């Protein structure tokens, strides 16, 4: 196929899009009072670097998955290195799916019980993960084509109530970098942390193209900025920080008189949910792939089914919203681990492998 690398880049973008707009702004408003762009650009830069290292590491190792790369250092190494990642992804998956279903009941399904929504989300994620990464990559492309239109349309419209003066001051009077140590800021990093690990598990049939990934990454920067700045410019910091979902509230304020629909939030939410579902499916697939490598004796569909049911039960068992927040804070070390340590390790290991291969080539 002539679209080498397009699929992985689209998946990368789509997964992040599904994450950015919902939980991120609210966490970010709690973390920073002024100069929001500094925080965003900072985390973005870290992410780009880290993704770059990760991909370089993978490229050094030539078509091997992360698991293979770590296995080259010993049988136990992948267990030690990837177990925290696995744990993080489990928690991240549960938190995301649970938070999203809470949000959905909040926005437009107030009569529907939570478990039913969870069931639906799990079902869709399960079906997609079941079909494998090749199908998911194609699905991602199709979803991106279908839903980018409404998404961009809504984003464009939501500038309606913007007061640009809220962006001031650009740099706070006593702007410091202490926000990095802020718990809320570290929680907000989940947007950057969990969405790229799957790149290391892609099969050969879905190549990664550095240039296309870079373009995809660049596309994400305005999204990160918009997700925070749209609510900020509409409500101002002191109001925006009160909302649980500032972005949705922002779009809810948009009044379009010529559309046959009253609440365009729904288009926005649905388009993003499509992307979020893909993110969940990809995460589920990642978890399944890891499980399969770790415990190869489980026959094929049962592993995934067991995993899905387990996750479903866990996410049902979460008592309330506050617990969810505590959980988010609780996994900060894991988050930083998967965000920074794993890519760096991959890079180093990949580099070593490459050197080894070179030396072998020289010897022979």
């Amino acid at each position, binding site marked *: 196929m002539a679209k080498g690398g397009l699929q992985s880049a689209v998946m990368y973008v789509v997964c992040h899009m599904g994450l950015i707009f919902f939980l991120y702004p609210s966490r970010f408003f709690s973390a920073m*009072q*002024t100069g929001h762009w500094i925080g965003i650009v900072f985390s973005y830069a870290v992410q780009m670097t880290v993704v770059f290292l990760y991909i370089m590491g993978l490229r050094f190792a030539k078509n091997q998955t992360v698991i293979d790369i770590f296995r080259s250092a010993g049988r136990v190494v992948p267990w030690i290195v990837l177990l925290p990642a696995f744990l993080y992804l489990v928690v991240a998956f549960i938190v995301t799916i649970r938070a999203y279903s809470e949000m959905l009941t*909040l*926005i437009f399904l*107030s*009569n*529907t*019980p939570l478990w*039913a929504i969870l*069931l639906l989300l799990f*079902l869709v994620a399960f079906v997609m993960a*079941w*079909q*494998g*990464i*090749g*199908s998911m990559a194609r699905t991602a492309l199709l979803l991106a084509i279908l839903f980018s239109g409404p998404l961009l349309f809504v984003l464009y419209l939501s500038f309606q109530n913007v*007061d640009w*003066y*809220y962006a*001031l*001051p650009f740099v*706070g*009077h*006593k702007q410091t970098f202490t926000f990095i140590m802020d718990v809320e800021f570290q929680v907000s990093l989940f947007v950057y942390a969990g969405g790229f690990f799957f790149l290391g598990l892609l*099969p050969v*049939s879905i190549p990664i193209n550095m240039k296309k990934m870079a373009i995809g990454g660049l596309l994400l920067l305005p999204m990160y900025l918009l997700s925070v700045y749209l609510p900020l410019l509409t*409500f*101002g*910091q*002191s*109001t925006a920080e*009160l909302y649980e979902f500032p972005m949705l*509230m922002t779009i*809810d*304020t*948009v*009044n379009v*008189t*010529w559309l046959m629909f*009253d*609440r365009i939030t729904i288009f926005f939410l649905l388009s993003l949910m499509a992307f979020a579902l893909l993110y969940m499916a990809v995460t589920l697939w990642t978890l399944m*792939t890891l499980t399969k490598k770790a415990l190869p004796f489980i026959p*094929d*569909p049962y592993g995934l089914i067991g995993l899905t049911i387990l996750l479903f039960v866990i996410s049902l068992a979460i008592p309330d919203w506050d617990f969810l927040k505590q959980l988010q804070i609780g996994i900060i070390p894991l988050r930083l681990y998967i965000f920074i340590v794993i890519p760096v390790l991959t890079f180093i290991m990949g580099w070593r492998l490459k050197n080894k291969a070179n030396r072998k080539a020289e010897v022979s």
Partner: protein
Amino acid sequence: MMIIRTPFRWRMKLLTVSIILLPLLSGCWDNKDINHRALPVIMGISLTEHNQYKIFLDIPSTDDSNNITIVSGTGDTINEIIDHMSMNMESQVDLLHLKIVIVDKNFAQSGMQDVVSAFNRSRDISSKTLFAISEQPLEQFFSEMKAKTLNSGNVLYDFFEKNAGWNPQLADTRVWQMFRSINSYTHDVIVPLIRSGKTTNIECIGSAIIKNGKMTGQISPEETLVANAFYGKSAYGKLEVMDSATVQIISNKLTHKSWMKNDQAFLRSNLKLNVTILDSKGHPTEQEIKDKLEQLLTSRLEHLFKQTQQDEADILALGQYFRNDLTREQLSRWRSEYYPELDFELKVTTKIENRGNLKNL
């Protein structure tokens, strides 16, 4: 390829199971069809003597009669009242399509923070819902409304709708703006003051100045127009220049210059108006009209500004222009400390774009 080939058997099993489960699912909760929901368009809120809420709902009927139904109830919280109404009505009251909230003037003066927060918190009520304050007691307002609007439920809604009956002398304030004004350091709002009219359905008698969810003062429709010009929403507003002409605003543009000196805020604004002449009296010159117009607007704004300074309500959101100069902590004291001391001058420049179909005045 890592595609997992699953046996066909599996898919069929899954399919069968999900098909069997589906009807079970849909039976678990009620989804009420649209014709079994009562969709109120207007909600009136007032306080009784016992400090209880009294709520009026204006529900357009969906049968052939096209009447509107007015339901009212009293209770401690809004939700309690709505629940009670639902119980006693043949369909479920659903606030999803609430368009306007009208509050009693007394209630507005005693503070509406709780109601506004409740509206923002609510899952049903759109944050685009309009706010208005009624001069009359709500009983009277709604009964007069009902008497007049025989054939359509959404007259009042159209009155405020941008693409229907709205005009720049009306304030246009939504629930989310109210909420922002309660929490924001610099943004206050004006809310239209209405009463039921003698010949028309509704009569607008100006706007209420709302600060932190509390009505503190009142301005006239003409002043509202100036405020709207400041918000950039004045297009097609008409201005009567005393004794000489009526002009229509085509577009306006605002520029600001702000600075701080000795802990006092200074602001110089320049309002550029493009107008067209609608009619004129006794052949004034263009320059005369311009001068008079500029004078008129400046004095109106001056008056408006002085009044809001007294009330410490920054309805023009002038504090926004000092975001660069003040820290957040200072900004939080903007209304009480800096705004009353603000040195503000407005310069109006008018350009007469055309004179209609006639060549001269």
